């Protein structure tokens, strides 16, 4: 059942939701739009196509405490961090980021299940938002993602001064059942017009043939990696803005009398110390580290997950790489050419 709410009334809905649950939405702060906790003072930016960082932080936070220790003489007290027990809503997730949650599920919900991630998934309600104006850097269509009708507990569409919403799950139903009924027609029109834009996007016909487990060694041994990686600074920006990058580090913070906090935080396979051991590293140059990132997304991950690529075509890495090296270059360089 389609529901609707006018933009004018949206703050009221947000206030109602935030009275009982944490509400996360795209919010502008210091000139950047990112997902953050909504308060009545927030500058809501549902119109921003892409947040700087992806929405993954709602389920896999950039920094997360896992266990706290207190040490005295030879003894240690262990206090595991609590998993989330309260419901929250993340509002305005685009189709690409919504797919990334499914990809993260493949990692964190695989045996053994990650308790912190699982609790967030259980308690989170995802409201997605169709992309009225996909940009030239968008290439989600290559991965079977429909930006005109994204998945999630609720799907929303912005049409002039009205937000249309459709619940896809029970969780979604509970969130929007209070809204008045809306018409289907404006949404159908919107989907059509978005579809037209998606068709014309410059990067919507990438050839992914050959990026699979059967060609693992062939892709790995491709001599083009060196040239592709030549400009890579190893800054890790691509991994930090990426909705699917899920590598993490575990670190200890010694707070003196307050004990020791062990936390995990996002990390990057692009960093030189990522695999560094006492006897050295198995990926000594940036070429190997660069190759690892893309081999993982385009070959290793699909080999383990029924052909599902670990890229959602959000285009953030295209926009943010200081050297303009990105996954589209890699796919085009290493992929099967039309005339092959």
């Amino acid at each position, binding site marked *: 059942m389609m529901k609707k709410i006018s933009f004018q009334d949206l703050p009221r809905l947000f206030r109602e939701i935030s009275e009982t649950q944490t509400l996360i939405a795209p919010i502008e702060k210091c000139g950047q739009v990112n997902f953050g906790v909504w308060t009545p003072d927030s500058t809501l930016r549902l119109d921003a196509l892409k947040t700087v960082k992806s929405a993954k932080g709602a389920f896999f936070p950039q920094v997360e405490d*896992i*266990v706290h*220790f207190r*040490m005295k003489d*030879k*003894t*240690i007290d*262990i206090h*595991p*961090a609590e*998993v989330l027990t309260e419901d929250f809503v993340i509002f305005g997730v685009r189709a690409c980021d919504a797919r990334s949650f499914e990809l993260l599920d493949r*990692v*964190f919900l*695989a045996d*053994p*299940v*990650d*308790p*912190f991630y699982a609790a967030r998934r259980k308690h989170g309600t995802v409201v997605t938002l169709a992309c009225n104006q996909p940009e030239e850097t968008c290439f989600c269509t290559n991965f079977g993602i429909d930006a005109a009708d994204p998945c999630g507990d609720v799907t929303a569409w912005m049409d002039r001064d009205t937000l249309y919403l459709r619940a896809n799950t029970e969780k979604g139903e509970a969130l929007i059942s209070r809204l008045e009924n809306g018409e289907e027609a404006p949404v159908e029109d919107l989907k059509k017009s978005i579809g037209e834009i998606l068709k014309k996007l410059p990067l919507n016909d990438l050839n992914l043939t050959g990026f699979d*487990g059967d060609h*693992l*060694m062939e892709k*790995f041994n491709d001599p083009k990696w060196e040239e592709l990686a030549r400009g890579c600074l190893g800054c890790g920006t691509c991994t930090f803005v990426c909705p699917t990058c*899920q*590598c*993490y*580090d*575990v670190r*200890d913070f*010694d707070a003196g009398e307050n004990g*020791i906090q*062990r936390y*995990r935080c996002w*990390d990057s*396979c692009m960093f030189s110390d*990522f*695999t*560094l*051991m*006492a*006897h050295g590293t*198995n*990926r000594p140059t940036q070429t*190997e580290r660069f190759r*690892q990132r893309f*081999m*993982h997304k385009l*070959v*290793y*991950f699909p*080999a*383990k997950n029924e052909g599902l690529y670990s890229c959602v075509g959000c285009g953030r890495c295209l926009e943010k790489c200081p050297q303009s090296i990105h996954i589209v270059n890699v796919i085009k360089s290493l992929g099967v050419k039309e005339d092959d």
Partner: protein
Amino acid sequence: MTDNIIPMLGVVTDIRTDTPDIKTFRVEAVGGGKCFEHKPGQCAMLSIPGVGEAMFSITSSPTVAGYQEFAIKKCGCVTEWLHHMDVGQQITIRGPYGKPFPVDDELRNKDLLFIAGGVGLAPLHSVINYVLDNRSDYGKVDIVYGSRSKEDLLDLPEIQSVWADPKSGMNVHLTIDREQEGWDGHVGFVPNFVKELDFDPSRTVLVCGPPIMIKFVLEALTELGFEKTQIYTTMELRMKCGVGKCGRCNIGDKYVCKDGPVFRFDELDELPAEY
């Protein structure tokens, strides 16, 4: 529910100095007994809060009651700290992680050949003692072990008194890299020694040591007529989570902490040589 990444407490109840840079630590649960049950070849994460956490192979056999042991070489922050602690120190421990050596399947009733170099004996130590405690389940057993010097041979007293005891039904072949006073045994590198000993290529082999040793042992075994499907090894890569999620030990479509660390060489052939 959080037990796969949250550690438990362990107490170090014994510390043995094995070589100038290797000590063996005995770890028990607080109040005694094992922290968990494990299989030969599995690993565990040991940690000192504030210093760090690292993955170590479990040196003791699962047949040992009451504790687990870890032979650890001093080579970084965590290991340095461990080497400086005293008996009675609590540490944190979580595990066991990884796929063990197939002691109850493929290795059963086989003639076995263990080849180790330096601290590479640590993961095989668990298997060797498991085999010894279930001796009738296995055929002939030979152990080739080498180190830089006599002092660097790990577990030498146990090797000489237990493994080399004729009652064990195992043959031990020791070697050191260079001539040394007080050593009348074999001198030379492990790969050449393996060739000299001319083992029958029907054996199932378990090898662990420095990467360069493994590389030449593999060549030596191939020369003797062994197939890669008969040779197992165990790998060491940087690890943080131990459950196939943090990404560090990813090689090809495998996570060494979860899909390994034990691999057969024909399996490794299908992976990028990034180890």
